[in-house]
């Protein structure tokens, strides 16, 4: 198995200065944007994006062309780049921001041209200090060159980009919470309806919210054509995707591959196999919110639909391997703790439930569990995500609460013995 290098080409070819505009332009950077602005039309761009069948890289996998098509008419429309990459295990946007910010900016220019948007925001998670600095520098360079600002590339078109740093909240990766945060409010997901920011988004104006990787793919798609992109990968999961591989593997890191190979092959070849030749006990196919797969499920293919058909999600492309020595109760507890810490606090079930789950897991992990805790765990989960089905039903506004349920249902469905073994059965007198 080999990587297919589209998005990471420039940064690999120019490891020294890929983030600087001179280097980017030397490698034909901004030529696509320039051509687009001067020669193309918004409709053509949208057609190419639709033809590429690219699906959003943030986690939900919503078809990008369809999303753009939803954008309601209004004098003021916005593009917001969701660079609040905070799903545990995910670090793909980081390299795109840090090492090829101009590719993102070029993507933004083309996107805004297509959607007739004059103001774009890049919302970067607060912990990404270096990526944010690089993006800010890149934006400034682009302004100096006249690629941003008034009359970009000498056209009639104006475009401004504002770089905004988050303050360290996972929930601000949820697009409506991100918009609240960007507006200066508490980072709390908004009520639905309105269901789509494309209708009522930032300042209640139609807003496109797209992931960094999605928009970074736009220049390649426009340069080479949507058809060409569509040929990569498999139906339903076209193009390349950067997977962040971590956990007990020999070669953790970001890998840009076409979707469609089994997870096992990916780990064995690019990942260099599991550390110390151990077996895989379980793995997370798409970030901390995704239900786990067992070690005997490594033949599942890395596509959005294959993973979904097996009751999990490809999510943000974070693959985390856990070998046979892993204490899965501790692993689940660690994930649940994360969600409890990151709950915004609006909805009762998430605010109270995630912390309670954390407490119960902590008790079990430290040998203070009770046999009744097995049912209690599942019932508390059920009160957050009724039916414990996938995709999850929710008693909450956003899916953060149900995300904390995923590792527990995985644990209880597939590794119940391991949990039970931690619960003392005899009372010591």
């Amino acid at each position, binding site marked *: 198995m080999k990587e297919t290098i589209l998005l990471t080409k420039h940064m690999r070819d120019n490891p020294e200065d890929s983030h600087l505009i001179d280097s980017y332009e030397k490698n034909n950077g901004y030529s696509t944007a320039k051509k687009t602005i001067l020669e193309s039309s918004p409709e053509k761009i949208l057609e190419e994006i639709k033809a590429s069948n690219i699906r959003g890289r943030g986690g939900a996998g919503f078809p990008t062309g369809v999303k753009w098509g939803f954008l309601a008419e209004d004098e003021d429309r916005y593009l917001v780049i969701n660079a609040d990459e905070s799903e545990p295990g995910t670090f793909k946007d980081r390299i795109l921001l840090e090492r090829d910010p101009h590719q993102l900016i070029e993507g933004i220019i083309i996107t805004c041209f297509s959607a007739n948007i004059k103001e774009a925001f890049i919302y970067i998670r607060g912990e990404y200090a270096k990526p944010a600095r690089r993006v800010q520098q890149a934006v400034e360079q682009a302004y100096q060159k006249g690629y941003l600002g008034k009359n970009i590339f000498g056209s009639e078109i104006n475009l401004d980009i504002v770089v905004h740093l988050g303050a360290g909240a996972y929930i601000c990766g949820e697009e409506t919470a991100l918009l609240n945060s960007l507006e200066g409010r508490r980072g709390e997901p908004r009520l639905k309806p309105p269901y789509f920011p494309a209708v009522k988004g930032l300042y209640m104006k139609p807003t496109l919210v797209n992931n960094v990787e999605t928009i970074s793919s736009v220049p390649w798609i426009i340069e080479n054509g949507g058809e060409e992109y569509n040929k990569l990968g498999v139906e339903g999961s076209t193009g390349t995707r950067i997977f962040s591989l971590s956990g007990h593997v020999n070669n953790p890191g970001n890998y840009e591959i076409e979707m469609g190979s089994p997870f096992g092959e990916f780990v064995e070849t690019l990942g260099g196999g599991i550390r110390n030749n151990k077996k895989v006990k379980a793995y997370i196919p798409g970030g901390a919110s995704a239900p786990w797969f067992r070690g005997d499920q490594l033949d599942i293919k890395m596509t959005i639909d294959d993973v979904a058909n097996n009751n999990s999600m490809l999510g943000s492309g974070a693959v985390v391997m856990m070998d046979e020595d892993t204490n899965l109760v501790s692993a689940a507890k660690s994930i649940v703790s994360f969600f409890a810490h990151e709950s915004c606090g609006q909805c*009762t079930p998430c605010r109270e*439930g995630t912390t309670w789950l954390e407490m119960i897991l902590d008790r079990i992990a430290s040998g203070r569990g009770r046999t009744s805790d097995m049912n209690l765990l599942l019932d508390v989960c059920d009160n957050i995500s009724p039916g414990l089905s996938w995709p999850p*039903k929710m008693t*909450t506004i956003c899916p953060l609460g149900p995300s904390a349920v995923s590792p527990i249902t995985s644990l209880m469905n597939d590794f119940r013995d391991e949990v039970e073994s931690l619960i003392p059965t005899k009372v010591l007198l």
Partner: protein
Amino acid sequence: MSEKVNLNVNGIDIESDPNKLLIEACEDSGIHIPRFCWHKRLDPVGMCRMCLVEVETPRGKMLVPSCTTEVSDEMVVDTESDVVKKAQEGVLEFLLINHPLDCPICDKAGECPLQDQTMAYGPGESRFVEEKRHFEKPINISEIILLDRERCILCARCTRFSDEISGDPLIEFIQRGNKTEVNTFPNEPFKSYFSGNTVQICPVGALTSTSYRFKARPWDLKSTRSTCNGCSMGCSIELNSSQNKMLRILGVDNDAVNQGWLCDKGRYNFEYLNSDSRLKTPLKKIDNELVEIEIQDVYSELSEVIKDRQTKVNFLLGSNLTNEDYVAFREFSEIISQSEKSFYLNDDKLHPGLFGENVDLAKVDDLNSSDAIVVWAEDLKEKIPVLYLRIRQAVKNGVKLVVFGHTNETLSDIADVFYGKETVSENFEIVKDISKLKEIKDLVIGKNITAILGKSTPHQSDTSVTKLFEFLNSNSNSKVLNAYSKGNTYGAFQTLENVKGLNDFVNEISEENTDLLFIVGADPVGRSVYSNQIKSIIEGLDTVVALDNFNHETSELANFLIPMSSTLGEKEGTFTNIEFRTSRIDKLVPSPGQTVSDWEFMTSLMNFAGLTVETNSLESLNKKAYENLDSSLSPVFDNLDKPSNLDGMVNVSKPKISSTDNNSNEAKFFTGEKLYGDSATERHSDSISLLGSKKYIEVSEGVVEKYNLTSSKCILIQDEFEVAVRYEVNKSFPNDLIYIPTNRRELNKFDFSREIMIIPSQVKEALNVN
């Protein structure tokens, strides 16, 4: 009316207006959905998740919050399915895991939505064995409100109220997730005129008031519905008492008036009822000493004065009387006095108002349906606080707001245009051509306007307001809400002929024309700008009878001091508000000691003197008050007590107010009143007694410069009289303007027709050292 939508809830077909929330539509059809965060008067937030119901969708049945879901035609809803019940149990269990079980000492216990809904929908027992979340037990977030964060279930009612309704978002959520708490900002207490409402709408005992804390258990309370007479808004209230002591006032949701809200003064200015300092026996002045006297002796001595029915009698009436009381005084004066009578209201300067033939009078609800509201009046936030809330509500609904003058700066944050010092001069005249103001062209001309007009200050000329009215009247479709702010002023207008203000009192009353003066529920010496003049007039009269709750600066001057029942819970009657809506005043607690209602006193006196009185009962006075009105529409008790009329009955009338205009003053100050002052009732209501104790003035930036004010204090001097005050800079004031609130102690004692000196306070201190 737009078309209805039909939906099916729990197998029952119901009908609803479109755009209604599911929770409301169900409620209207008698199907109750439990809830904590949802409140009819607040924007939905869908946070507590208690109101989840199952709705059929193309993707199967879905759990949705009924407080954020609008009804749609052919919607199929289940509010009682197993899934819903499981979710409700789940939410309650979650809410309870961190909720302290201190119900036995919690004020809310017994009327607590969390308790009630746990009983109705909750799990039988808790499965939570860990330690609960802890916070410091109640913290004072203001002088009158306490917050217990352990009890809080984070429903956001209080935070939404202060943000959306009262517009002073001083409490907010801080932290997040399981650590989320409601709190104030550092060094900024929850100092809101409306904070008591948050206590009332809190669904648990997280917010409590110093006033009611630990005073009673809800199941011991007696209650009745009445009307607040604190200002002319006439908010609907519920009075609560236990063991014959008034303990609490709650706002009642009267859609046309207060919509459930009250100002804190209205809510807490009742504690004086239980004060030990209240007058409970009649007093008579003998050798400058007030000594106790039997009420029979009062009657007999006064009978001597009135029996020949030639007595020259005058009245100085407060605004806290019932309409029946006013009628009793009117009847009394007609029987015992043949001369022309005047009724002086306790108002420095009674504006003649806009009641002419060409005036279309507005109702409060018109605020919501007009294109724009134009305000030029006293500071409504200080004087008619709930009307201020209604203006905010209208603006939130998209009505434009145009504000004139320096007094309503409190509305400037939501006003579309605020005409400040450039447009309105320091003596309250509009100095620009109104028709040429750009915003007026856009927002007012040709539009539906509700104008709230009144005098901004006693020193303002009548003509300045009339001029604005005339412009509005000829350039727009305008209605007028006359902004008299004091208590039952409109009741006095409806029942009395020839009412005047205190400026006329000081010009007209003398020994020659007054044998007998009644001062009823009024303390002009303590509050009026004519304090000194009124004092010397009263001292010069032969017989002065004061009826009051307290012995205060004015009543202590009387020859007879009669203890009066309070209109708040101690007597029955009617009250008429700013839109001529008459509603019920009801009695809940016995009058203490020998206190009597004003009408009882007057009727008994006439009986004692052997004069025949037709109106010798409350019922007859009530009928007499409205004898000119069509009997089916008149607010007599029989009509008002009908369930459909509990919110009051509107009978617009056009009163005759005799008022002499004063020339607008040349002095560089104006007077007014703050919400909180140091009136006798406030001084004896412990919770709020200190809120109006600060002596302060507001000054323009020019004044600070001119008088070299540097510290936060300065000293006002006139002749031998001087007062040290704090000052605040009000940037909307023109050049040399100074605002002096006369309901703060001593500040009404200046002669406002002459100059008042200002010196910085440290100069004075330096002088003292030398």
